[in-house]
Each structure stands twice: as structure tokens, then as C-alpha cells.
């Protein structure tokens, strides 16, 4: 029967989970209701706002545009993986200092997209930042401070990388 559940094994934030879920369960709903990782937010369920963005096998993806069952064996990272305890990571800290969040609903999606952007491009121009983040909607901030936050995070990450004296990302 279509409502029969299918077993699926997914690694999320470094931990392996095994669950039985309906095929129609979105990855976003799997994270939120099966695993109680509610940091990933659903703003539209239509792939047009980006609030639900997570990392799927190391690349950003909209968790409302994937079914959990598609991701058998995949590795997912959500916002909760950035700083579960202890200090905020460089990107989070930069958002904080730049006042780049207000209500916080879109923020997890922005953090994940920023994570990928700076991994791919450690020194993005304003135009590159805007192009990479244009798919994430924010209704509160007007975006200006988010651009500042990304630049701030980029410069700090570059500093830390060169201070570490290594070329490794």
C-alpha cells in the first residue's frame, strides 16, 4: 500500500538514524518530526524561499524538495551541526555582530547557504554573494546586513586559515 512505510537509513549531523517512513515524507519533515531537529524551517514547501536549506552529501539542497526515502545512505547536515554547544562558529558570529537576523526564521537556511558559498569561494565579491544567496528570501532584514555578515565571516575565515598556516580548507 502506498501508505506503507519504507525503512531508510540516513546520517544526520554525524549520527546514523534508521526509521520507517511514508514515501511522501519530505526530508524537511523527517528532520523536524522524526528527529526533532526543528532548526530547519519550512517557509513554503514549494522550493521558492530557501528557509529549509540543508547540506545533502556536502552540497546545499532544499529539504522540502526531497523525500526522505530518496536519501538512503546520504549524509545530511543541518543548522544544528554548526555549533551544538560552545561558541558560535565564525559564520554565526558574523551574522550576530552584523545584526543579520531579526525574527530568525529564514536564518538557518542562510547559514547553510553561506557555509557552502564560503567553502567554494573564500573571498566572494558583493555580486557573488548576492548571486549565491538570491534564492533565500528574508522579509525582515532587507538583506543589507546579511551581505555584511557574509563578508565579515569570509574575512575572518581567511584570517584563521592563513594564521593556521596551512592551505587546507
Amino acid at each position, binding site marked *: 500500500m502506498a501508505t506503507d512505510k519504507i525503512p531508510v537509513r540516513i546520517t544526520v549531523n554525524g549520527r546514523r538514524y534508521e526509521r520507517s517512513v511514508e514515501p511522501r515524507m519530505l526530508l524537511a519533515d523527517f528532520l523536524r518530526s522524526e528527529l526533532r531537529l526543528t532548526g530547519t*524551517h519550512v517557509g513554503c514547501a514549494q522550493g*521558492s524561499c530557501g528557509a529549509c536549506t540543508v547540506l545533502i552529501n556536502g552540497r546545499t539542497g532544499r529539504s522540502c524538495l526531497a523525500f526522505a526515502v530518496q536519501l538512503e545512505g546520504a549524509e545530511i547536515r543541518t543548522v*544544528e551541526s554548526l555549533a551544538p554547544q560552545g561558541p558560535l562558529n565564525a559564520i554565526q558570529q558574523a551574522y550576530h555582530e552584523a545584526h543579520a537576523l*531579526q*525574527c530568525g526564521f529564514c*536564518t538557518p537556511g542562510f547559514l547553510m547557504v553561506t557555509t557552502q558559498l564560503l567553502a567554494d569561494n573564500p573571498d566572494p565579491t558583493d555580486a557573488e554573494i548576492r548571486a549565491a544567496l538570491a534564492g533565500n528570501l528574508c522579509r525582515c*532584514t*532587507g538583506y543589507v546586513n546579511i551581505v555584511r555578515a557574509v563578508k565579515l565571516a569570509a574575512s575572518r575565515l581567511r584570517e584563521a586559515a592563513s594564521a593556521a598556516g596551512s592551505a587546507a580548507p
Partner: protein
Amino acid sequence: MGSPESNSIIGKAVLRREDDRLLRGYGCFIDDVPEPAGTLHLVFVMSPYAHARILALKTDAARAVEGVVDVLTGADFAGVVKPMAPDYAQPGYQVVGRPVIALGRVRFVGELVAVVVATSRNLAEDAAELVELECEPLPALVDAHLALQPGAIKLHEEASDNVLFRSIFKTPGFDAALAGADHVVRDRFHSQRLAAVSMEPRGCLAVHDRGRDGLTFWSGTQIPHIARTALAELLDWDEERLRVIAPDVGGGFGMKAYLYPEEVVAAALARRYQGAVKWIGDRREDLLTSNQGRDYDYDMAMGFERDGTLVALQARIVCNIGAYPTFPLGASVEAGGAALYMPGPYRLRHFAFDTCAVATNLCPTGAYRGVAAPVSAFATEALMDKAAHELGMDPAEIRLRNMLRDEEFPYVNVLGIQYREGTYERCLRRALEASGYEEYRRRQPAGRLAGGKYRGIGIACIIEHTGQGASRYRARGILRIPGFDSAQVKVEPNGKAVAYVSHTTQGQGHLTAFAQIVAEGLGIAITDVTVVEGDTAQGPYGTGTFASRAAVTGGGAVLRASAVVADKLRRLAAHALEASPADIELSQNYAHITGVPQLRVSIRDLAATAYSMSAGELPPGENYGLEATDYYDPPYPSITNAVHVVQVAIDALTGLVDIERYVVVHDSGRIINPPIVEGQIQGGIMQGLGSVLYEAIRHDAEGQPLQASLMDYLLPTMADAPDIEILHQETWAADTAGGFKGVGEGGTIGAVPAIALAIADALRASGARVTELPLRPDKIIALLEGVDGSTHREA
């Protein structure tokens, strides 16, 4: 009494205390609130017709779906829930009630016709599709001008026609004044229907306590106290049994300052099933049913003397408010505000308006950031420009001639509203200078076209009525809004402070800003202050957060309550240190004698005294405890002012608009936290930008909405966001506690006229009339070609 330098934290750029958990993904929005075991889920069946008589509703097939507990219709709620009627019977208003679920007749696409209750949301959606609705379609009335004609189909039996609110005003001698003006400019303006589109849609979780017949009601609401009172009234439930909690809320913008039928149904069903009931709306429902706004037509005339002096202003305003007045602000908030805010920063003695709110078969509307002020500003500023152009003056010059000067304050405007202070001229001059206006005009080609772009510059001089109190809502006839807010400030036995405030935040930073006020008032570290909001069981009653009020009414209440607690701390310290309270200073978690810092006692020790936990003595006549509650109702609206100057470049081929430069000089009173203020301005500007360039709610002639998703309803993205240069002009309010003014909507109010007029300036050589929003690329190209190839207003 001034605070010592070391205490001074109001005005500082304190980083937000809200951020840490939100950045970690540990926020708790309505869909994150843990569901009690056995929570039932609601899915609403919505009307596919804009206007129809309900003939039959067949729910058997839906009921048969596994997991479905019940399927209920309007009849099931008719005896249990009162109709939602926000307005009271008073001149100008027609009282109309809305059944929470349609009874007999549906009046807009999206109106609730049935509710499915099931063990999971998926199953409820499956069942909802099986509900069969049989209707006799009726003609859909979507055009407000047609709806207000005599003989138009009446949408509500209890009203005599579709004009649910009307207000007419004319100053004595107006007609002669307008007729006698040297130069009269007229035009008609249309602003399109908008959706607020907070990133988080609406939702609620209602949890019944069967033993106490109590309810804990979680909702992403901007008005927890008003919601509680309303639920009690509508459900005939003792108010003291109800608790409303707003968790983290993902944006409100006025749209969530309302009680919605879905919420009332959820509360009623929690009681019926004696358990927990949850409803989470999705984006599709949000675009269909969340309050929309700004569907207005303005017919304007402004009379000037030859030298550009404004003599008279006449406005006829028609607001399309959709199928029902919305609760609690009612039918007048848009139509009344449109007229109320129109005089703006200008000297005006002759004012006439005729404003009305008309019901149609569209989604109900309500307050959306700025409400009608952005459009009123667009209309008046556009006519200022038109008059300037025809009189051979620069637009800046005509504004300077007419704006109120410093020496005219306090100024009572033509509607009897007091402008206590303002920096209109100063802000305009600063903005012109900062934006290089004169140089821009000097270099500007008459044809406006260079390098494939049409370029123009626009000025908007605006005011914003913030922090409106009880007297304003009474005067406006809006009787469900108390108008005051409150705070209970308490120092706990450990010497740390908690402030319970009647507001609630959707991202405005209250937990930081109010903490700054307490910290400064009590002389304790901000890390020792906690602000609690949004929970009716914690803290005193108040109005809630909308209409740019929190800094004024909340800030004021927190300030005053803190002052009372601070006075008690000084009395306790004076007793302990054998000094006079007048000689005691509070600073850095200590109370010490002025000038003798080593003679001190810690706040914590004073708290121990106040709670009888130490050997310390209370002064004679003093009682235990260390708290104070203040209710604050500002005596006047705090009127802020701003000037926005915008430069645009329009691609001559595609019509796409670039904002090349955006300068705003903003006076929003005493600033508590500069980045928070700037964030409000930036966010407000972006919403204004979206409403000028991209956003529109559209329908066909039958009232069928044409947008199903955010691919159809276009919000501005980061790629569209200009850098915004914000210059502060800080003028403390003379009459509000703390000198605070509000700032939430000013960005939007200025952005709409400034961007629209910049576009008008860019298109000036083509003779285009820029009077309709939005100004999408196809509209701009049509204006350039002199063809009104409009795709708007399908009806």
C-alpha cells in the same frame, strides 16, 4: 535624574540577546512547540468560489478516511462560537460579523467551509479532498467601485450596503480655498493588493486542560492579550482560564496582529475534544487567507499658490477591504488611516476627505506595514512633484516651502493632531546634501536617457504616527484596542531583574532593547536582566505589538516601572548606608553614595533584604518585595519624520529598475539600540521596494486568485537589495516616557513614494504618468511607449 556614564546603555549598539539560540537552530516557532501526545491536526477546506450560496456539504467520504476523527462545518460552530464582529455600532461604521466557518454563503476564494480533524496532517489533507461542496455560484463583486454603487449586490445582510466604513471631513471654507488656488493639480492613484508574506506562515496549537477547563493557546500572534480577551468573548469562556503564548514568531508586519477564524476554531475544538489541537497553515493557504492590504484608489486634488505654497488638499479614497472586516482592528484601519496620515509634514489648513472601506468578494484585508500611509505619501508627494514641475520649481524647493519649520512646533494640524516636535527641514537638507541632489539635478539630461538607462531621482518627505495610545484609538473609532501597554519589573532574590512586558516580538529585538532600559534604570549589568514577553500568564495586560508602538508604549512602561524599583533600591540602600536616598547612585550592580564609591551595598544584598532572606532591615514604612508594574498610555502620538532620496536607473530595453543610491535621514526619537533601528528601516524599505517593483496579488474577473506560490508573488531578493545609507537625526520626544518614538514602519512609508517618484522622474521625458503600482518591467516599458499595456487589475 541622569545616569552616570558607566550606566549608560540606552543608545548603545548592544548585540542582540535573542540571537544565540536562533543561530543555533534552537528557536521555537509555532510548528516547533512540542505537541502533547494525541494532538489532533486540523486541515481546513476552503471555498473555491469567490461568491456562492452553499447548497450542500457532503462529508461522509472524508469521515471514512482512516485517522479522521470528524469533519465539521459552519453549522457545528454556529451555537458554540460567536461571529467575529470587530467594529462597534457608531457613526460611520456598519457592524458585520463573520462566522468562523462559512454559514450558508461563501464570500471569497479561500473562505473556510469545513474543517477536518485527524490524527495527522497528511491524513487530514487526504480527507479534506474528499469533502464535496455543492454551491450555487453568485456573481462575484471584486471591483470596489462597482461594489459601492447603489444597487450592487449586497455582500452582508446586516449591512445596508457594501460600504462598511465611511468618513467625510471638510474644513470650513474648503471649497472656496481650493477654487481660489492659483494652481490645482489632480490625479488618481492606484496601489495594488499586497500580501504580507512573513517567512513563517500562520499557525496555532490549542491545549485544553480538561480538569480545569482551561486552555493554553500557542499562536504566532502579535496580540496575545487581545487574542485572549477575544477568545474568551467569542467562546463564552472565562478569561482567567485562558492563557495565550506567542512563541518565536517568524515575522508579523501587522498581518499577525489579528485573530483569525482558524485560531478560534482550534481553541473551540481543543475544548470539544478535551485535548490538544494543532493547525499549521502552509504558504498556499497564507497567500489565500492571511490578511492582505493596500488595495486602494485615491482621487486627489492639491491647490497651490503661484509660489508653490500648498493651500488645500482634497482626497477621495476607496479601500477594497475584501469580504469581511478583520478582527480586532476592524473596517476603518486602512480607510481611516489613509486620510489621517495624509497631511504629512506640511503646513495645511484646508483639508477635505471622503474615505471609505468597501466589502468585495476578495480576501479580507488589514494592517500591513505602514498600512495606508505609504500610499497616502505616494499620492501627496507625487502631486507635490507635479505642482513643482508645472510651476517651474524644483521638487525639493516646493517641499521646503511647505514643510513645518522648527519654530512652528508644537503644531496642531488641520485634524487636531499635535505634532510635538520634528526636524523636517533639517532632515530634508541633510538628505539633499548627503545624496548630492543638487549636483545630480545639474548633470541630469533633460531626456533622462544615457548609456541605455533612464535615470531619475525621487524625494519623499514623510512622517509616521507611532506609539498611538488609547485616546488615538478612541478618536479613530477603533474600540477593541486598549492603547496602553505595561511592564512589571522585578528584582529577584538573587539580585537579577526580570521585566514582564505586555508586548511580543517578531524580530524587533525587544528582549535586548527593553533589557537595555532596565539595566540602565537599575544600574545592573544587562546580562543580569531578562525580558519576558508574549505570555498572558506572565506579566500584565496590554495591547501588543503593531503600528510602531513598542519602543514608546513598552519602552515607556519598562522605563517607568524600572524607575519605581530603582527608587525602592535607593531607599533600601539609603537605610543600609545611613544616607539619604537622594545621595544614592545605582551602578554596576551596586548602590553607592554619590562621590564615595567605596561606601556601597550590592543589589543582591538589597534584594535579600527585600525578601527577608538576610539580617538586613527594611526601612520604616517599607514593605517587602522589589517590583513595580506600570501601565503606560502615551498622551500624544509620537510623530517621527524621515526623508528618503532615491536614485534609479532603468534599463531602456527591459524596464528593469536598479536602485543606484538610497539615502535616508531618519528622526525616530531617542534611539535605544542603533543597529536595531537601522534594521527596522532597512527591512521596511525593502518591503516598500517590493511593493513598488515586484509584488501584486491578482485575481481574474471571478475573484479567482492567480498566485499559487512565491514564484508567482515576487518578493525582493538579495540581488535586488540596494545598499542603504542611513543618517540619524535623533530628537528626543518631549512628551513620551524616555523620549522614545517608534520606527517599525517608517522605512516602508518613505520607500514607496521615494522609489515611485524616482521612476517618475526617470520617465519624465516620455510624459509618462506614474500613478499605479506596481511598476513592473512591462508596465515601465508600456509607460515609455505611451501605451498603457497594463496587465494589472484583471477584473
